[in-house]
């Protein structure tokens, strides 16, 4: 049957479970990609490229799609960002490259994320290998935690010729890309294929290994010339309210992880769910719950819409998925009946004066308690730090900022000469994101190379926009074209 006679299934209730968990955005067709690529103006010193934390040469990769050089396009992306396939899917593009697009106002921004995915998918389908392990430098580096930061650092180092071993606590590498990004944003296969590419560069991947239990950190430090710590963050903290330990109260990250590793039909979910928190993870939990089939999902957040930490497009997405929001609401107790969650007792809040962070403080309204009936409560109120591990690092003189590992931002080196760190575990300020973690890995790889070899970074190995600025030829002494001020033949009359 002709494609346009096939009914388009866009209403969740018309789709089956598997269909509801396909990627929200379908891949661009070749035609769509070429048309969109041709809409790109190919700006010089393009703001999209500056806005990208990894400084992908976006105009160039898009132009290569328009000229049919999709292989070259993927290469351009990968040169700047080994996590290109993940970033294409999970980057908050509205806040970064697409938000900076010069066409934002007069037309609409170029779909940079989806074009990047098109190029990355193409390279994956064709199984193109862009980089090889570099000539051995005879130096060893250990990477602790194989999330986007760790994988990037490992990959860049392997390209330069280091012997790299990644230690990962979980069964599969990829960190949050594998376990923490909702499957309809990034399928687990994409994250795992991306990690496989790092392995293909000659990186040794040791999974199911916990540092401190299976191997001691001292040993790593002794056996390697440098260690990159990218341990991310841990589980969701306690809310410290009664009833928190009841069956039916779950950790949001664990809830997401189930959808990544289990058959969808085996996942338990409630019919009426309260999600506590209003960050991006909370939104993910709520939209997953809806797509699993939950009838009513309410997000409970103690401040108002204006303060919610989730990206605005995620908020809109959740609204579209039929998620309700209960703002200015603070949970005070999880209620139960026969040991099972039965409701969430909450109190209404009001906004008071701004606190140090500038956000207005929520204060409880007296005698305003009420109960939201529910059979499941999902906590998504942030992530704990791996405090014991970080405390262990303290023995090496490593400092912390707000509980995060403190590093020098130019090198991502800690106070210990051999220990570098990156990813969410150093994100004491700014957004924790895949793309920021990726850049952390690049910065550390560069610094490790320079520190261990004494050389400056080989040109083109780690492209950043600042490296690519063309020096005015005049300063190089070969410009002989003198620019004289233009003088009008006749003086302007007054």
């Amino acid at each position, binding site marked *: *049957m*002709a*494609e*346009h*006679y096939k009914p388009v299934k866009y209403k969740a209730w018309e789709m089956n479970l598997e269909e509801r968990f396909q990627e929200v955005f379908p891949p661009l067709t*070749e*035609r769509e990609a070429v048309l969109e690529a*041709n809409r790109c103006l*190919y700006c*010089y010193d393009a703001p999209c490229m500056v806005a990208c934390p990894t400084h992908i040469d976006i105009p*160039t990769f898009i*132009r*290569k799609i328009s*000229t*049919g*050089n999709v*292989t*070259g396009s993927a*290469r351009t992306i990968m040169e700047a960002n080994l996590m290109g396939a993940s970033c294409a899917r999970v980057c908050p593009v509205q806040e970064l490259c697409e938000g900076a697009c010069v066409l934002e106002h007069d037309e609409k921004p170029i779909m940079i994320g989806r074009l990047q995915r098109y190029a990355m998918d193409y390279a994956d389908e064709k199984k193109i290998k862009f980089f090889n392990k570099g000539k051995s430098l005879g130096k060893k580096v250990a990477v602790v935690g194989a999330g986007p930061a760790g994988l990037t650092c490992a990959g860049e180092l392997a390209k330069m010729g280091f012997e790299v071993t990644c230690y990962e606590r979980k069964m599969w590498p990829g960190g949050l890309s594998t376990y923490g990004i909702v499957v309809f944003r990034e399928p687990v296969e994409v994250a795992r294929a991306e990690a496989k590419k790092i392995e293909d560069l000659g990186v040794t991947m040791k999974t199911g290994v916990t540092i401190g239990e299976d191997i001691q950190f001292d040993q790593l430090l002794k056996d390697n010339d440098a260690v990159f710590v990218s341990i991310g963050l841990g589980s969701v903290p306690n809310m410290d309210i009664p009833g928190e330990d009841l069956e039916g109260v779950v950790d949001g990250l664990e809830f997401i992880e189930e959808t990544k590793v289990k058959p969808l039909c085996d996942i338990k979910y409630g019919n009426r769910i309260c999600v506590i928190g209003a960050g991006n993870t909370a939104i993910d939990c709520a939209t997953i719950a809806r797509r699993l089939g939950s009838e009513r999902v309410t997000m409970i957040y103690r401040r108002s819409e204006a303060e919610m930490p989730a990206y605005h497009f995620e908020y809109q997405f959740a609204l579209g998925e039929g998620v309700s929001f209960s703002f200015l609401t603070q949970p005070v107790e999880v209620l139960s009946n026969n040991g099972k969650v039965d409701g969430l007792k909450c109190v209404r809040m009001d906004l008071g004066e701004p606190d140090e962070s500038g956000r207005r403080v929520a204060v409880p309204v007296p005698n305003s308690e009420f109960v939201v009936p529910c059979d499941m409560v999902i906590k998504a109120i942030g992530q704990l730090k791996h405090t014991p591990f970080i405390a262990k690092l303290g023995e090496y003189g490593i400092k912390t900022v707000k509980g995060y590992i403190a590093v020098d931002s130019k090198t991502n080196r800690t106070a210990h000469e051999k220990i570098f760190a990156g990813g969410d575990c150093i994100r004491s300020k700014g957004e924790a994101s895949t793309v920021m973690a990726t850049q952390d890995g690049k910065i550390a790889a560069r610094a490790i190379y320079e520190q261990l070899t004494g050389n400056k970074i080989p040109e083109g190995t780690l492209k950043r926009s600042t490296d690519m600025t*063309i020096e005015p*030829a*005049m300063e190089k002494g*070969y*410009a*002989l*074209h003198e620019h004289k001020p233009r003088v009008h033949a006749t003086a302007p009359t007054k």
Partner: protein
Amino acid sequence: MADLSINFNGIKSPNPFWLASAPPSNSGYQVQKAFEAGWGGAVWKTVGAPVMNVCNRYGTIDYKGRKIIGLNNVELISDRPLDVNLKEMRETKKNFPNHAVIASVMVESKKEAWQEIIKRIEDTGVDGFELNFGCPHGMSERGMGSAMGQVPEYTCMVTEWVMEVATKPVIVKLTPNVTDIVHPARAAVKANASAISLINTINSIMGVDLDTFEIRPNVGGKGGHGGYAGPAVKPIALHLLSSVASDEEVRKAGIPISGMGGVETWQDAVEFMLLGSTSVQVCTAVMHFGFRVVEDMIDGMSNWMDERGFKNCTDFIGASLPRISSFGDFDLGFQSVARIDHNKCIQCNLCFIACNDTAHQCIDLKDMKLTDEVKERLWPVVREEDCVGCALCASVCPVDDCITMTEIDTGRPHITWNQLIKEKPEVLQWDKMVEYREKNHIHIH
């Protein structure tokens, strides 16, 4: 990775991409910046007779939202003194000894003038010369540029003057503003030129302002013909290139050709090279986007070569030339018909209206019952027995691979027009032609 380097009759270049002689190659600053960006060579903006420029110098054609599918200019040759240009050529060659630096030259039609400037330029160490017999505006009115290129005898004469003194390769650049470009090409061959380049820009007027009635580009209220270039001229350039490259006299001389005219991407460049260009020259794409476009040209061509197992450019230069033929030698028995894939068809019906109004009325709109829809729209269906195989429907179809022109065997004789009129000269009479067709079951709808 494939080796993109070329040897253009002694001019060595790391890749086949050269800046054409034009505003982008106006100065040492620009040419050296271009080399840093990856260009393999540059033909310096023409030096020669003293000039004065005007403004506005450029006019463009935009097409349905896309900027600059064609660009014309009335800029003249270099308006910077010769000494300055020579100094910068020397400096550029010194800084980039492995890149091709070629001086484009144009002076009045005097033997002494040509020979003197050639000697002076050669002293800078450039790799070769390009004789500008093509500039169609400003200089031609002064008896230079295309005024020389349009008269094969002049082309031959001036080239001979240059060949007498030049020790470096000499490229003769041809103008497309002639009836048959093969004649000036042969004139260059006759004068022992080392190479040919084409095309220079095409005479053009870009447009008229509907409010002011001014000509575009507008030079103080007036306008005139300028040289047309950019993506829109590529098909013309490819034709002229192929006719020169497949000309017997040019082939016998064995000299390379540098092709240009609308090259914007690596794909364009490959097409020029398949039709016999050893190097390709680029101007408009660079004027639109900057020198950086060369990165994709190199990368794209290299990937394309790798995919096909080509190691060097010589593996494919001229590979399509044997396919250049002429109408009299085409196979009259070759029959293709349009086939519509109704799984892909979106029922825009552009194929129907194009065929019905302007071609051969062999597409019908039919009730096909291909779906479960109660009110299913009509589908375009080709009456294959009436399809003449013109390919208009496939050309207007907006869906990729929806209408394909498929070769079918009709059993009609595989004969060319030239063979036919030799064997059966009587078909030049209409009644005999009809008889011949009927005998061979050729039904013209």
